[in-house]
């Protein structure tokens, strides 16, 4: 049986995914070489020495490729059968790391073994992918069922909690990506809409005075109801616009609270009119949204002001760079953006990145490796990398959709979710698009645990996919 599987595995191997994987790994190696390259050093001296990160990464890649090959020869049923066991092992590792782990940069996230470090949270992603797929593909699991929902969420909430205790907020955040597979499999879409709305309103609440947000929300509600006025609609709209203009100008004159109060009265009046009309049904959900959004806007603003200074700084760096101290919290993002910007359209050329070479960028071989791409390869290189990742992600969804086995599809989407969050958050962070969250860029960043874990996840995907016809 094993022989037949292997034969069919190689025959049906998805060469596109494998090529994308190998390209990204190769590019990653070149970027790490560029970061640590110093003039006058011999090539072999750099590549075959375990004293520097290029040599180490070369070894990690070697181990990973071996592992990939190994995975292709493992019976695909192995993963489903041992999914929970693997999950349990990774969870135990997360427990253990809290006790006997090595503390680096104030986080106890690593096991130190024979001069190398192992980051169990990277492997917990793999374990959780398998466990989630296994759970969702169980006959008794019904995604519309509350108990199933709670269990599914619990599966990724457990590693989140354990990783937050290290503490490593970035890695913990990655596990929320399982919401993607849950969405694909039928989790209530309204929950996502509500979640996204709440997130947006909360972020706005950080930046703007909540009074303005409440004013804006009330205006949206009024506009919705104005829309239902059938007669003389043009006059209603003109009146609404006049009110908006007057309201905003009054607010800029310091009359925020009175304007908000009057708007409240107008809202009640409009609600009364609406109540007289035909579509009473919209009032309830509208007010529900209004209250929830208003609550989060006020709450996020209030919470932000209660946050300790350094956490406020982190958010300021992202949302309001002008308020952050350029020499403090903002420094990394400024240098990162300058470095990427200095690449221009074409980039400075391989090994010509002065800013990365001169250590302007923090963590440049790991979390900020994308700066090297931006500086040396320019916008062309940036588009190239983003394009490769996008192709990879889309390819995974295509693979997912062609699986006969639900387990395989769930697994593919879980993996896609993890990869997506890493990809978007990491690159977005280097360009100031998202807050600085310390997670590596898969396949590219330096680090053994990361490349090994992502290789294994890729390998399992390839293995599952190559056996898709066997199911």
């Amino acid at each position, binding site marked *: 049986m094993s022989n037949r599987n292997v034969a069919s595995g190689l025959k049906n191997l998805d060469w596109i995914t494998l090529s994308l994987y190998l390209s990204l790994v190769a590019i990653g190696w070149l970027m790490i070489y560029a970061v640590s390259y110093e003039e006058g050093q011999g090539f072999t001296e750099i590549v075959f020495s375990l004293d520097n990160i290029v040599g180490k990464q070369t070894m990690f890649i070697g181990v990973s490729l071996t592992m990939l090959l190994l995975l292709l020869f493992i019976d695909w049923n192995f993963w489903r059968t041992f999914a929970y066991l693997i999950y349990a092992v990774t969870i135990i590792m997360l427990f253990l790391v809290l006790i006997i782990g090595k503390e680096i940069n104030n986080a106890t996230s690593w096991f130190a073994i024979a001069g190398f470090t192992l980051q169990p949270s990277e492997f917990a992603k793999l374990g959780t992918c398998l466990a989630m797929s296994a759970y969702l593909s169980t006959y008794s699991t019904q995604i519309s069922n509350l108990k199933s929902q709670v269990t599914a969420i619990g599966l990724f909430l457990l590693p989140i909690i354990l990783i937050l205790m290290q503490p490593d907020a970035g890695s913990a955040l990655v596990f929320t990506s399982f919401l993607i597979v849950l969405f694909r499999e039928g989790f209530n879409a309204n929950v996502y809409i509500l979640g996204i709305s709440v997130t947006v309103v909360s972020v706005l609440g950080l930046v703007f005075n909540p009074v303005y947000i409440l004013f804006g929300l009330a205006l949206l509600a009024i506009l919705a109801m104005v829309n239902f006025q059938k007669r003389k609609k043009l006059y209603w709209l003109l009146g609404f616009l006049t009110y908006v203009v007057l309201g905003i100008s009054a607010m800029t004159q310091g009359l925020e609270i009175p304007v908000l109060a009057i708007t409240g009265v107008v809202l009640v009046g409009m609600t009364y009119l609406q109540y007289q009309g035909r579509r009473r049904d919209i009032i309830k959900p509208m007010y529900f949204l209004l209250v929830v959004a208003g609550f989060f806007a006020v709450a996020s603003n209030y919470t932000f002001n209660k946050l300790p200074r350094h956490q406020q700084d982190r958010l300021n760096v992202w949302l309001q760079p002008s308020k952050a101290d350029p020499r403090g919290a903002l420094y990394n993002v400024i240098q990162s953006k*300058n470095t*990427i910007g200095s690449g*221009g359209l074409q980039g400075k050329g391989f090994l010509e990145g*002065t800013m990365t070479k001169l250590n302007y960028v923090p963590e440049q071989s790991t979390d900020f490796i994308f700066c090297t791409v931006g500086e040396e390869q320019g916008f062309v290189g940036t588009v190239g990398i983003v394009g490769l990742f996008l192709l990879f992600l889309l390819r995974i969804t295509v693979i997912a959709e062609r699986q006969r086995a639900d387990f395989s599809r769930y697994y593919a989407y879980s993996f896609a979710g993890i990869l997506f969050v890493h990809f978007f958050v990491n690159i977005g962070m280097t360009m100031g698009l998202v807050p600085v969250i310390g997670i590596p860029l898969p396949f590219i960043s330096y680090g053994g645990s990361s490349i090994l874990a992502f290789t294994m996840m890729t390998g399992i995907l390839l293995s599952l996919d190559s056996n898709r016809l066997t199911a």
Partner: protein
Amino acid sequence: MATKDMYKSRSRIIQGVFIMAAVLLVLSALNIQVIDPEYRERAQATTVNKYTLYPSRGLIYDRNGKLLVINNAIYDLKVVYKQLDPGMDTMHLCQILNIDRKTFEKNIKPNFRSVRYSQSVPFVFMSKISARTCAALQEVLYKFPGFSLQLRNVRGYPHQNAAHVLGYLSEVNSEQIKASDGKYQGGDYIGSTGLEAYYEEELRGRKGTKFILKDNLGRSVGPFKGGAQDSAAVSGLDLISSLDIDLQAYGESLLKNKKGSIVAIEPKTGEVLAMVSAPAYDPNLLTINRDRGKAYSYLLQDSLKPFLDRSIMAEYPPGSIFKTLVALAGMEEGTMTANTGHACSGGYLYNGTVRGCHNHAAPYNVEIALEHSCNTYFFQEFRKLVDQNGFYNPEPGLDAFVDYCYQFGLGQPLGIDLPNESDGNVPTTDYYDRLYPKDKGSWKSPTIMSVGIGQGEIQMTTLQMANLSAIIANRGYYYVPHLVRGFRPASVQIAPRFREKKQVPVSPSYYPAIVDGMRRVVRTGTAALVNIPDIEICGKTGTSQNPHGKDHSVFFAFAPKDNPKIAIAVYVEHGIWGASYAAPIASLMIEKYLKGDIAEDRIAMENEMRDADLIADNP
């Protein structure tokens, strides 16, 4: 095995989210890398330090190749605010620089809102740091990221002389920067007076630029783009001055404790050999260092005005030396000859008043009149000159005389290569019309005849007096006096106007009488005291009347009589008679220049001159 897939369409939404996210990243990169140049510029500003390479300013030599002005190293400490380490040991730095914390705080945070300063561009934290402090600082500079030292050259003077001629440097002011079309930047030095100012263009050289890559701690790591955008500094031209520094120093020693000036010219070339103004100061006082401000204001407040260059900026009545010019003009105009004689009864009586003369032999020709400096003689000759068209028509005569004055270089700056040369004063008909405005013609030759003996309205600079002497020495021509002899490299020529022979419109045949008269002055006349047996000095004493105190002592001379090597004018304020100070000093200068040493029997005179203190006597 597969269950019914109700939500297959959601895969499209997920793909859509992936694509949107990728587009968002690409757009963001497009903005940062392609559209908005701000990031690129900031990257360049933070990674590349622009250094100005200052050219070394040209040196100044004397005519014998002795160094007069050299360059000394001094340092500016510059800082890039953004590269500072907030945790640095400020006290340590203050200690090395010998400043207090307050100064530190003030210097480290200039007004960043001003366009002159930027937090990411180096600005001068402290300037004029001595080489010694710099050495101490260099050792620990690595502890202070963001700080860098910049070498500047300031002037040094191996001799303590010729301060007025050499001039000094100052920092450029904002107007100079604006007018310079980018040549100067704040903190640059510019020649402020003297040769330093006049030959600023030649001495300055051209600045260079160097772009240096630096790492995140502000340490230099190498040239930017392999130095492709760098440009080297070009040194300024060395200036070879016509001064003889030994003669200059000697002159300054003779004028010690006196107010006055000496100008010595080589008649054949117009080159200025010495140009002394007393009181002088040591030019080293005004070299750029941290004590300079104090020295400057001290000198500025000195009531003796040491900054005033009395050789070209002060204007005096020339006194009797002017009689030579009156005689030359009279002979050329034909109102007199070399043999014209007058009677002198110890005064000149006109209209009931007597203008005094001295007791002397009868001036039966111009030589004897000069020998004894007969006032009566020159009153009459000057009047004859003015009245050549009739007593009631003095204007044409005066105009003719004024024209001679102009041709002899009076009444306007001679054009020496120094800033701020005065023009002196030649009283014209217009001048007298304004002075006696009752009605036209209210002045006549007797009104203005004191000009004939060099008193009254006629005023000259010492340089003009020396030049007059040079004209007589040359028997009728001169070169515009100048202090530049050449440049190094020699391919750069001095201004052509200094090589242009200026002929004076008096026939050479009239000069021998004047020269002989001047020779008589020194041999047997008013300056017989300073006669040197083996040098044929021709000279003329003068006493410049001073309504505010003791008269001024004047003497001008050239030597030797034939083939003159030096023409000189000496002016000693409050020295009374020409023979009392100016003549001995001039003769010593001539002897020093021609022979190198002072004869044994004249040492006493030398000492007397050196030791005389006319400032204490005439405060």
